[in-house]
């Protein structure tokens, strides 16, 4: 029987070992179409994603700008806060109303423009200053103005007019000539707005620039991927045992735009490094997918195929050991290109480096000298580095890179912001935050790998006044 088996095997091997047959023409057509559609899909997706990110950023800036200009109010409910000032006799100014009327009826609504106008002795306008403030009741019928002190420091009295009303010349229905005080500011606003609040509102809509840096604790979450495997080591549990988190870093510059009260929009440019530490023996020797043979060194982990260079060229002791290890069994069909009996101290460090462009919304829960904010947003990551290092203690040697990694990723950001205001617009901040990659970093694979990191960002910023 053995002889029979050997004979049968020999016949099959001789007749089929080198068997070749020309495939039908449609096979090449299918391959050609497949290559074309993959190329288009990647580049089209890349540009669509980049365009979507830029459009979102542009839209946010435009939206903020529209909020800043606001719409001038036409009718205001004037509420009294203090007594009327001015000449008692013959005054055309409305008499004082009850002081008891509350100014708390000002409802925080859309922002309005207030204009402070200065006039000279002739009653001609000599200057005006506008600011956007919030807190007016809308759609209330305007009632005649009252003079209020809007600048208690300078004790300047003001008169109130509806928006667009011409206070010079004959168009001053509410004032007689002797009531028209040169140097007095006239404010188009509703009353009840005190100086402190006006000044506070004038501090908004400012730009802040800053810089941040953070140590990161980085790892990944695995979801079932698009491809299946026959290999035992693909079990997620065993992958989690041989792949561990790393400490890395991130840093960059940011720009903040303070919109309506308590809300800030932040973007910028950051660098971040993501990655994992891999147990060398588990990854290279018991690879979850032993692709290589004939001296092609590769192995695979949860993120994808790890492609190695045997000749690293650095001449270090570790580089020499790496080369000797890879040359142990040349040209034979073996696990991972002959990588066996490696030193137990060897690990692989799988790094992916990104430029990040975040778009983050901050809401200030507490806005004092110490501020506390909730932080949430999205970030685009552009791949700029892809490296695998062999690590032995403190020694490092670059030995390859990971294949099939996406060029563009998106992540969600959640965190808390703590800010301490220093003097003259300067502030320091501390922001613990969590970032999770919404799409996998690998384009194909047994698993979809979603990196995440937790970092504590420290920074300094300056608000432009």
């Amino acid at each position, binding site marked *: 029987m053995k002889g029979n088996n050997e004979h049968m095997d020999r016949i099959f091997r001789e007749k*089929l070992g080198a068997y070749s047959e020309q495939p039908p023409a449609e096979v090449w057509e299918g391959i050609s179409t497949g290559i074309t559609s993959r190329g288009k899909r990647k580049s089209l997706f890349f540009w669509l994603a980049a365009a979507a990110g830029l459009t979102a950023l542009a839209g946010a800036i435009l939206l903020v700008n529209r909020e800043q200009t606001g719409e001038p109010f036409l009718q205001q409910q004037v509420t009294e806060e203090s007594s009327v000032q001015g000449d008692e006799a013959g005054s055309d100014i409305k008499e004082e109303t009850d002081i008891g009327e509350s100014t708390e009826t000002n409802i925080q609504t859309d922002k309005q423009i207030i204009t402070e106008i200065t006039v000279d002795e002739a009653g001609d306008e000599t200057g005006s200053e506008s600011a956007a403030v919030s807190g007016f009741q809308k759609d209330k019928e305007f009632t005649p103005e009252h003079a209020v002190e809007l600048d208690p420091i300078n004790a300047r009295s003001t008169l109130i007019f509806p928006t667009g009303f011409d206070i010079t010349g004959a168009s001053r229905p509410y004032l007689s000539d002797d009531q028209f005080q040169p140097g007095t500011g006239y404010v188009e606003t509703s009353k009840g707005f005190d100086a402190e609040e006006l000044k506070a509102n004038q501090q908004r809509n400012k730009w802040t620039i800053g810089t941040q840096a953070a140590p990161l604790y980085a790892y990944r979450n695995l979801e079932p991927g698009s491809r299946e495997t026959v290999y035992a080591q693909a079990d997620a549990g065993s992958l989690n045992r041989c792949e561990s988190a790393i400490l890395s870093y991130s840093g960059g510059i940011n720009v903040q735009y303070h919109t309506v009260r308590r809300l800030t929009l932040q973007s910028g440019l950051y660098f971040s490094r993501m990655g994992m530490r891999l147990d060398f023996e588990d990854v290279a020797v018991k690879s979850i997918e032993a692709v290589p043979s004939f001296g092609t060194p590769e192995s695979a982990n949860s993120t994808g195929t790890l492609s190695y260079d045997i000749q690293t060229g650095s001449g270090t002791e570790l580089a020499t050991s790496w080369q000797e290890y890879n040359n142990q069994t040349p040209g034979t069909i073996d696990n991972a290109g002959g990588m066996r009996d490696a030193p137990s101290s060897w690990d692989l460090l799988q790094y992916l480096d990104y430029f990040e462009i975040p778009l983050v919304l901050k809401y200030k829960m507490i806005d004092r000298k110490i501020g506390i904010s909730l932080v949430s947003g999205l970030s685009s990551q552009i791949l700029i580095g892809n490296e695998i290092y062999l690590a032995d203690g403190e020694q490092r040697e670059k030995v390859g890179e990971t294949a099939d990694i996406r060029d563009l990723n998106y992540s969600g950001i959640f965190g808390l912001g703590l800010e301490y205001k220093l003097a003259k617009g300067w502030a320091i901040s501390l922001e613990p935050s969590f970032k999770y990659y919404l799409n996998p970093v690998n384009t194909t694979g047994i698993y979809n790998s979603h990196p995440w990191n937790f970092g504590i960002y420290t920074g300094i910023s300056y608000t432009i006044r």
Partner: protein
Amino acid sequence: MDHLEKIIKGCLAGKREYQEKLYRVFSGKMYGLCLKYAGNEDDAKDIMQEGFIKVYTKLEQYNHKGSFEGWIRRIMINTALEKYRSQLHLKKVDEELADRKLPLENDILEEMEARELIRLIRELPPRYRMVFNLYVIDGYSHREIGEMMDISEGTSKSNLSRARTILKQKLVELYKTTRHIKS
């Protein structure tokens, strides 16, 4: 520059004419491989297409050490294994054959054409067909087959034994039919 090196370089640059040249050089042998591993001609074409697309997308990972043909063959085999992965562990009742010692007329094999042998292999269940191809035709060890197919060495050996038994049975039936026709 070596002709193949030039073609590989052109493929890495994404030039379609070089991709087609590469295909023309290796398509005959690789289609022959796909026909052996596939259960039918349509599957063979699918494996061929998917395999070559992988060759082009992974080409930058080939570091010019070892045979390029061997590198492509390995990709094709892996593609075939992936295609039938879900069937590699199934067992059908009628496949459970005793290890029958079948007399086999040696000359019948000698007379058979390659295409006929491929048709015979195709009639094997996927897991037997894979093991038979990997061990008998492509020279992998049972340990390597076990790792590639996520089975033990022992299972690989028993699958091979069963594959041989089925092939012999079919050869015997074919021989009887052939003798009957000839007579």
